[in-house]
Structures are given as structure tokens and as C-alpha cells.
């Protein structure tokens, strides 16, 4: 009965779109909500206006996490998308599913010049020398600080690429000089940040070079670089200049509210938050690179965000249309406008020359920082993401470890517990999937 309903419904939908015009419909699933959804629809509109052959139909699918299961479970039915947006940590899952056509096939057919597209972003979504998906919305974790508050209390701002102790110094000074009215800093309980701290220290979380040279069989988070990162946070918790906003979606909103209302001076967040932080902020916003360990040079962080994938259950011409849309979405002007309206980074190097971005940088010079951080990083195995299945669960377990430490727990014990749980899950998943 359910199958019947789906087919009937699916049929009526496609019949309707065919009645409007004779273009080939390209169903596009995405997970951009709020202001980003409006910006995405502009991209789609722009593509549809430029086309006589294809028509992209965008459909919002909720959160990144939930969309993955929808994509996998609808594959091969008439409801499945022709092109879809899947987030960074689902890359291994998508490659292994065998449900997608690598974009490399189309790149080769068209002799499309990918050298214009950010290499760190491309490296994240490639495997075995093949581009599997095309990065679309890409962000970098950066450190934000309240420049006006630092000025008010006469504190020297942190350098462009700060070390952990640079940040500790500023946080402590801010807390003391504001007479304990402003907390110095916070780091949200978010597995992404822990992974980035490792990437920036040049360390790897999973064996086989974070999965880039083979399917991972062993994970070790309990390494000196994680310990140093957590020790840095713990030190600030002890001196009371740290405020904990917890984990989850509400934590992000709470810490943004705290930052905008002068309750906390420094926090780490995605560069995609710039729009929100400049729009309603009466203070001057400061941005630096993601902090690095004291005695190490910054290795550069991996990107966050999502990529566009092409499903292989659709006819050739539909897949071709999907790639035409991907190419359009990477045009310099499209990426520039995308960065301006969302805070995600323009991936096309030529976008920097457009008037849109030049105007933006003239108005908000600090919005240049994340792009510079991205351009500076040289892709290597540590900062090209972790190509491992079960990353969603891994992140949850990393967050439990972080929360344990934030609440006073022992760092080594918390990390060992996480390692055990992550490895149990990894071994079981490898066994279920028949990987060696």
C-alpha cells in the first residue's frame, strides 16, 4: 500500500512539472534552512533562468543527519533525488554505498578545469584520486572575539594565527579586567572542533591516514594532541574565565546570544556564522584562525559544510543535467554571492576578483579571514577530513568525552572510554559491511 501511494504521488508530481515546460526536471535535495535556503533558491533560480534544457527542483530535507538516511533508503525509487547535498562526515558512507556517480566522470568528459576550485575543499571529497562529489557550501571553523570589549579594557588582541596560550592570556585578562562581569571564552561541546584541533596539530584520528589510504580499522582519540586541546580548556575552566554552553543546537544559539550580549568574549564557530554576527552586533567583531598547540605550527583545519553528489539511479541525461547545475553553482559570481549572503566560503578562486566580494571586504574587512585560512592550508591527510563510516556516532562519543572533561572528569579516562566505544562500533560496522 505504501509503495502504491509513493508511486501514485510521485507520478502526479512529475506529471505536473512536465506540464509546465518540456525541460528535464532535476530533483535536488538539500538541507539549507533559514536564510541559507533563500540564498540557495536564488542559485537554483539563476540556473533555471540560464537553461532551456534542464530545470532544477529544490526540495528541503531537514537536518544533515536525517537527510543521509532518507537518501540511502529512497535510492532506486521514483522519489529519490537526481542531485543531493550531503554533509562532510557522510562522505565515506556515500562512497561505499555505491549509489552515486563520481563527478570525476563528468569532469573528464568536459575537461572541466577544477584547479580554480579550492584544493583543500576538493581533497575532502575525493578518494583514490577521483573527485567523488563537488564541494558546494564550505565553511571553516574560526575564532571570534569581541574587539570592542578588548579595546575597552586595554587588552592586546590575539594574533591572526593564535596559539592556545595566546587565547588563554586574552580570556584571563578579559575576565579579570572586566571585574568578572565578562567570561573570557567558551568552546562549544562539538565533535567537529575536537577533530579540527587534531587536524590543526597535524594529528590523525583514524589509522590508514584518516581513511585516505584504506578503510580505517582502528581509532585513537587519546593522543597527546587531544590531551593538550582538552587541557587548554580545562585550565580555563579552573581559572573560571570559561563558560560552558553545552552541546546541541541550543548550545550554539545560547553562546551566540551570550557573545552578542557581552557575556563572553571569545568563541569558536563556523565561518558561516559571520552574517549573523555582523548583522546584529553593535560591537566590532574580531576574527582569527583556529588556534593551534603552543609548540607547533598550524597545519590548517579541514573544511566543514557539504558537497553535491549525483545519484546513479537516474537516466544519463538527468545525471548530465545534475552536473550542469553543479558547474553553474561553482561559477565565480555565484560563489561570491553565496559567500556574501550566507558566510560559506566562495570556493572558486576567481570569486575574489568579483565586485561582490570586493565590496564585502571593504565593508567588513574581517570577513576575509576565513577565506585566507582556507587558502593558506596545504591539503594533507590530517586536514582533509576523516574518511570513515559512522562519523555521526563517533562525533556523539567525542562530545560525551568533551562533556565529561568539562564537568570535571579525568581527560585520559574520558578519552579511553570514547576510544573503546568508537572502536567497538567501527569493528562491528566493518564486519557488517564485509570490509577487512
Amino acid at each position, binding site marked *: *500500500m505504501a509503495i502504491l501511494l509513493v508511486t501514485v504521488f510521485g507520478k502526479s508530481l512529475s506529471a505536473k512539472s512536465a506540464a509546465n515546460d518540456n525541460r528535464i526536471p532535476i530533483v535536488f535535495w538539500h538541507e539549507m534552512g533559514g536564510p541559507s535556503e533563500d540564498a540557495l533558491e536564488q542559485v537554483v533560480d539563476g540556473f533555471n533562468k540560464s537553461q532551456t534544457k534542464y530545470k532544477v527542483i529544490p526540495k528541503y530535507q531537514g537536518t544533515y*543527519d*536525517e537527510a*543521509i*538516511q532518507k537518501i*540511502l*533508503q529512497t535510492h532506486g525509487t521514483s522519489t529519490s533525488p537526481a542531485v543531493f547535498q550531503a554533509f562532510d562526515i557522510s562522505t565515506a*558512507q556515500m562512497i*561505499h*554505498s555505491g549509489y552515486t556517480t563520481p563527478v570525476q566522470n563528468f569532469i573528464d568528459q568536459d575537461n572541466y578545469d577544477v584547479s580554480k576550485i579550492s584544493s583543500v575543499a576538493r581533497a575532502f571529497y575525493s578518494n583514490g584520486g577521483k573527485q567523488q562529489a563537488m564541494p558546494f557550501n564550505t565553511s571553516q571553523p574560526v575564532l571570534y572575539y569581541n574587539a570592542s570589549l578588548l579595546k575597552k579594557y586595554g587588552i592586546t588582541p590575539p594574533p591572526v594565527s593564535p596559539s592556545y596560550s595566546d587565547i588563554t592570556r586574552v580570556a584571563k585578562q578579559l575576565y579579570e579586567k572586566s571585574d568578572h562581569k565578562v567570561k573570557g571564552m567558551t568552546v562549544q*561541546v562539538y565533535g567537529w572542533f575536537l577533530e579540527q584541533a587534531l587536524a590543526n596539530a597535524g594529528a590523525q584520528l583514524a589509522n590508514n591516514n584518516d581513511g585516505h589510504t584504506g578503510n580505517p580499522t582502528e581509532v585513537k582519540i587519546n593522543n597527546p594532541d587531544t590531551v593538550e586541546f582538552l587541557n587548554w580548556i580545562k585550565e580555563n575552566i579552573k581559572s573560571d574565565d570559561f*563558560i*560552558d*554552553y*553545552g*552541546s*546541541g*543546537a*541550543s*548550545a550554539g*544559539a*545560547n553562546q551566540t*546570544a*551570550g557573545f552578542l*550580549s557581552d*557575556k*563572553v568574549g571569545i568563541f569558536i564557530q563556523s565561518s558561516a556564522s559571520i552574517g549573523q554576527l555582523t548583522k546584529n552586533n553593535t560591537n566590532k567583531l574580531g576574527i582569527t584562525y583556529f588556534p593551534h598547540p603552543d609548540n607547533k605550527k598550524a597545519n590548517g583545519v579541514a573544511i566543514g559544510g557539504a558537497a553535491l553528489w549525483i545519484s546513479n539511479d537516474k537516466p544519463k541525461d538527468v545525471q548530465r543535467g545534475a552536473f550542469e547545475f553543479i558547474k553553474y553553482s561553482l561559477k565565480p559570481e555565484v560563489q561570491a554571492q553565496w559567500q556574501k549572503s550566507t558566510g560559506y566560503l566562495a570556493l572558486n578562486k576567481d570569486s575574489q576578483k568579483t565586485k561582490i566580494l570586493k565590496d564585502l571586504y571593504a565593508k567588513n574587512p574581517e570577513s576575509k579571514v576565513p577565506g585566507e585560512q582556507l587558502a593558506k592550508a596545504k591539503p594533507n591527510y590530517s586536514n582533509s577530513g576523516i574518511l570513515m*563510516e*559512522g562519523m*555521526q*556516532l563517533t562525533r*556523539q562519543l567525542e*562530545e*560525551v568525552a568533551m*562533556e*565529561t572533561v*568539562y*564537568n570535571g572528569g579525568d581527560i585520559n579516562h574520558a578519552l579511553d572510554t570514547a576510544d573503546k*566505544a568508537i572502536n567497538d*562500533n567501527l569493528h*562491528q*560496522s566493518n*564486519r*557488517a*559491511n*564485509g570490509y577487512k
Partner: protein
Amino acid sequence: MLKTSTTNVVPEKKVEAKQRQGFRLNANDKYYASIFLGPSLLVLTLFVFYPMLKTLYISLFLTNTLGNTTVFTGLDNYVKLISSPDFLSSMSVTLLYVVAVTVLTVSVGLLLANLASQKLPGIGIFRTLYSVTMGVSVAVAAIFWLFIFNPSTGFFALMSGWLNLPVVNWLTSPTNAMWAVIITTVWMNLGFTFLILLGAIQSVPSTLYEAADVEGASSRYQFFKITIPMISPTLFFVSTITIIGAFKSFGLIDLITKGGPTNATNMLVYRIYKDAFYSGNYAKSSTEAIILTVIIAFFTLIQFKFLEKKVNY
């Protein structure tokens, strides 16, 4: 009003059931029975029995990335889960939550209902106020309480700022987060519980109280010896509904804590959802679903075996 309908229906059904046992079905009856029962059986099979059996089936395997069953492991999933401290803590957290929510909802609801049943001028305003949370959706309630709990700008944080008290980390400390979720759930439940209990209290015959007044019984004595026994079927109904509702609690947890911090509010139902639709581990979540089914069945059985006998219909 609701009280009478729930109390009367149950015994009637029992009587019918007893009579039915005496019948022998002839061929004609079987024909009609299949016509009348067929459609509902078909729907039930498709949407209830088939998914149930499939869940049981999946729980005996490992599932791969695509959600397909691959390696048969027998009861291995169950053994692993029951011996995992993570899952056991989820179970105890769920039990704590269910007990706390039920006890608080029913007792506070009863208190408010008893207060609001007094015949005083302007009491209608309070009756409306107390039942107002019935009209509040889970999403609105969650956001409303998130604003209150915000450690920088929330109502509680501002209050403790004025009183020079340290700020309580409502959502980041494991114990407090549990209470934050309990408080929010109880607040959500109160409107409905209050309304049902108020209806029950008001339908207690006033002659009983008048007779007690003549005897000189105190109002406390009247409450425990007249009100409570007379509304006991409704209390039973309300607590059953609350227990089942608390076990199924999902929306508030998803919106307020997402199961955190350190899994302190990761109840069974939320866990099942996360394991299936976040992690894509269908085998694990099916196993958890079966365990939850067994637990709820057990509680329902206990309730009907023991509590029902004590209820005064």
C-alpha cells in the same frame, strides 16, 4: 465526564467476552467474521504486525551502511546491549524520568485541581490559567524554557544575578539537565492532568461531603477518605497515560538537550531514534526497540494486575 466513560466501558467488555466464549461459530458466521474483520486485520498486519516482526528479525542481524541485514548474530545484539554500561545508564535514566514525571505530574495536578474545585468567586480564572498549557505545543514549550534556562541571558540567570547567587548551569550539568527536562515535561503535562482531575473531583456527589460535614470531619480527612477513593479510577487513568507518555517522551528532549550532557537525558526512545536515523545502525536500534517493548508490556501488565484491583470503580 471522562471518568464515567472510562469506568463503565471496561466491565461491559469483560461481560461480553465471557458470553462470547460460550458461542460456536458456524460457517456463515465465519464468512461474516472474515468480511468484517478482514479490512482491519489487513491494515493491522501491514502497519503493526509486519513492522513488529521485521524489527524482531533485524535485531538478530548486523546491518550495513545501506540498512540491509548482513551477518546473522543471533542474540548477540541483546547480550551486547544489556552488558553495555551506556545502555544500562539510559535505562536507569529513563526509569528515573518516568517515575519523577509521573509522581510530580499527578501530585501537583491533584493539588491544583483540589484548589480549583473550591467554589469561590473568580475561580474560573484560575481554572483557565492552570489548564492553559494544554494549548501549548511541544516546540513552543521547549523554546520558551530554553529562554528561561539560558545561562547568559535567561530568566533564571538574570534572577540569580540580581540576588547575587551563582548561576546554575541548567542544561550543561548532567544532574541539572535531567531536572530541567523533568520540570519542562511536568509543566507541559499539567494542563491536561489538571483538567481531567478537576472534572473527576467535581463529579463526586456533594452529598458525601455534606454528610462528612455533619459528622464534623476535617477537610483533610474528607480529601483522603472521600475525594481520593472516589476519583481513584481517574487517578489510575491519569497515571497510566502519564507513564506511557513519559516513556515515549521525544520532542522535548530533542529540542532541549538532544540526549546530553554526557547522555544524562538520553532516554530509550530518543536513543532508538538517534541510533537509527543519525547513526544508521538499524540492528542496534531494532534491538533497543524490542527491549523497550518488553519493558512497557511488563509495566502495563503490572498496572493492570495489581493496581486495577485496588481501584474503586
